[in-house]
């Protein structure tokens, strides 16, 4: 028996020719899926052409999701989307998603079974780490990296150290994956896991669903992490079966695997969280946030973090039969067309519209300050997205507060930052 390995080390090792790997090793890893979007793929395509290899490594292992500025927000965005489309056509890329099928990439690819447990995924998008929720090693890279992966089907990676994060106990009412991850980032800071893999474990995750795991893995990058992984279990299996069109592997960390750190949290004492501008680490309990009487102009519910059907259901539960505050906006963005359709069938769209909100077609939209809800100078939003950097959603003097969909919905009703218990 060799050195006991973490799940992350095992997945990386299984994608190399090495017999074992250790943190710090630089390896050439084979990739199962290489992902780009309408912003990052154009640069990758140019670089791919510069390599001059002529063929992509595998048309089935590339995913292209135009989601950031699509449906095209202006002529320049249309050109970028066109470039991605032309590339997809030329190489007959299997997982290219045209406008009507596309949604926010990190919600879409798991939903469609494109990314699976045990995969090694690289994506030219920092939130590629979302797929760690499935028990995959998934990490964000740049466009040049993506070009290299398109050409050779492999990429250099440094094997990361792992931090094990254990949440024990049942979450309080309304407390979700978003609150746990904001709480964690508040504790360890935006650089707290820089270059490292976060590995999540504990009894709490038996009480929460896949969507909460996606939210948590999604925000691993907000602590600087390379990836954020969960050991797959029966909850993963339930999600994956019926979606997967190829084999997948459940890896588990070995007994005695080494961690740079082990962090233990008691979930029962964690409250709803709100992260203040301009860093995700500025998280505080809802009681503190609410007591400050922070007026909001806009509430956004969507994104790869919290735009799944479970999120919309929670928001609808709070908004049902209520109206949002006068002179405020509520923008709901189902993350994928399937989610949109489900929300429609379940009557959620009506609830949002009756409350005075609008429902957008799937897109990243305002999350990165693209379009579909940009903030003016001095405006303030509460958002279920993942970043509250200065100017992230619009003017450089605007502010973004991060929270879960329940808090975003309650805040929309009161026109100020508030918890769901204040409205239901």
């Amino acid at each position, binding site marked *: 028996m060799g050195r006991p390995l973490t799940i992350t080390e095992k997945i990386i090792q299984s994608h190399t020719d090495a017999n074992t790997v250790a943190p710090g090793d*630089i390896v050439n890893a084979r990739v199962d899926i290489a992902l780009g979007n309408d*912003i*990052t793929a*154009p*640069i990758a395509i140019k*670089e791919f052409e*510069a*390599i*001059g*290899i002529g063929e992509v490594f595998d048309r089935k292992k590339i995913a292209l999701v135009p989601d*950031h*500025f699509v449906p095209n*927000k*202006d002529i*320049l*965005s249309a050109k*970028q989307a066109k470039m991605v489309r032309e590339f997809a056509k030329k190489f007959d890329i299997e997982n290219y998603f045209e406008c009507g099928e596309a949604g926010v990439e990190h919600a879409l690819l798991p939903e469609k079974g494109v990314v699976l447990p045990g995969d090694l995924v690289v*994506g*030219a*998008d*920092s939130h*590629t780490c979302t797929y760690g929720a499935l028990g995959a090693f998934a990490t*964000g*890279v*740049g*466009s*040049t*990296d993506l*070009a*290299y992966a398109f*050409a*050779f089907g492999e990429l*250099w990676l440094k094997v990361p150290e792992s931090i094990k994060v254990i949440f024990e106990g049942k979450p309080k009412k309304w407390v979700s994956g978003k609150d746990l991850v904001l709480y964690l980032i508040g504790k360890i800071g*935006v*650089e707290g896991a*820089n*270059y490292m893999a976060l590995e999540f474990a504990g009894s709490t995750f038996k009480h929460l669903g896949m969507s909460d795991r996606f939210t948590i893995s999604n925000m691993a990058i907000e602590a*600087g992490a*390379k990836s954020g992984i969960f050991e797959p279990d029966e909850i993963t299996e339930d999600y994956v079966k019926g979606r997967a069109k190829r084999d997948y592997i459940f890896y588990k960390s070995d007994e005695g695997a080494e961690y740079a750190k082990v962090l233990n949290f008691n979930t029962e004492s964690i409250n709803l969280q709100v992260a203040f501008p301009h*860093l995700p680490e500025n998280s505080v309990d809802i009681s503190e946030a609410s007591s400050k009487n922070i007026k909001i102009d806009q509430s956004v519910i969507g994104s790869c973090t919290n735009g799944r059907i479970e999120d919309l259901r929670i928001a609808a539960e709070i908004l049902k039969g209520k109206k949002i505050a006068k002179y405020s906006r509520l923008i709901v963005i189902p993350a994928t067309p399937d989610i949109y359709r489900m929300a429609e069938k379940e009557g959620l769209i009506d609830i949002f519209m009756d409350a005075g909100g609008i429902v957008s077609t799937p897109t990243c939209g305002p999350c*990165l*300050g*693209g379009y579909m809800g940009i903030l003016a100078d001095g405006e303030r939003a509460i958002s279920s997205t993942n*970043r509250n*950097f*200065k*100017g*992230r959603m619009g003017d*450089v003097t605007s502010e973004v507060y991060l929270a879960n969909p329940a808090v975003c919905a309650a805040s929309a009703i009161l026109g100020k930052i508030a918890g769901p218990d204040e409205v239901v």
Partner: protein
Amino acid sequence: MIFSGKVFKFGDNIDTDAIIPARYLNDSSEENLRKHCMEDADATFSSKVSKGDFIVAGNNFGCGSSREHAPIAIKASGVPVVIAKSFARIFYRNSFNIGLFILEADTDGMDNGDMLEVDTDTGEIKNKTKNTVVKAKPIPKFMAELVNAGGLIAYAKKKIKEGKK
């Protein structure tokens, strides 16, 4: 290589939205990215920076998005080296891939307008204004090879050529 120029100093956690705001990402041309480089951290940066100047920052420079537009914008501004106490992972990787030097060093003694002389081979950073010398952390061997090869694409081309022989 040795570079000299003046310091543009920034604080901690300069994120990629500050380096190149998303509103400009509908055009990945170097000229567009250069024009808006650092705009949300210092709106006057692109008009003041000269070829050879340095961006110097605190912790966690380049955190946030994976957009390679960020190091491209910096390189297109004529900045050859970014010096910070620490870098976010994807920014670090992107910089080496496109051939922008990144040095990790104690930047507390470097202020706006200081003249530096930076040797990327030895990691020695001379502050000629303050007459001090700081040593940067050595660049990992693999990364140095990558930059010396001219970045990842040049490395890839070499790989194809060797394969075809």
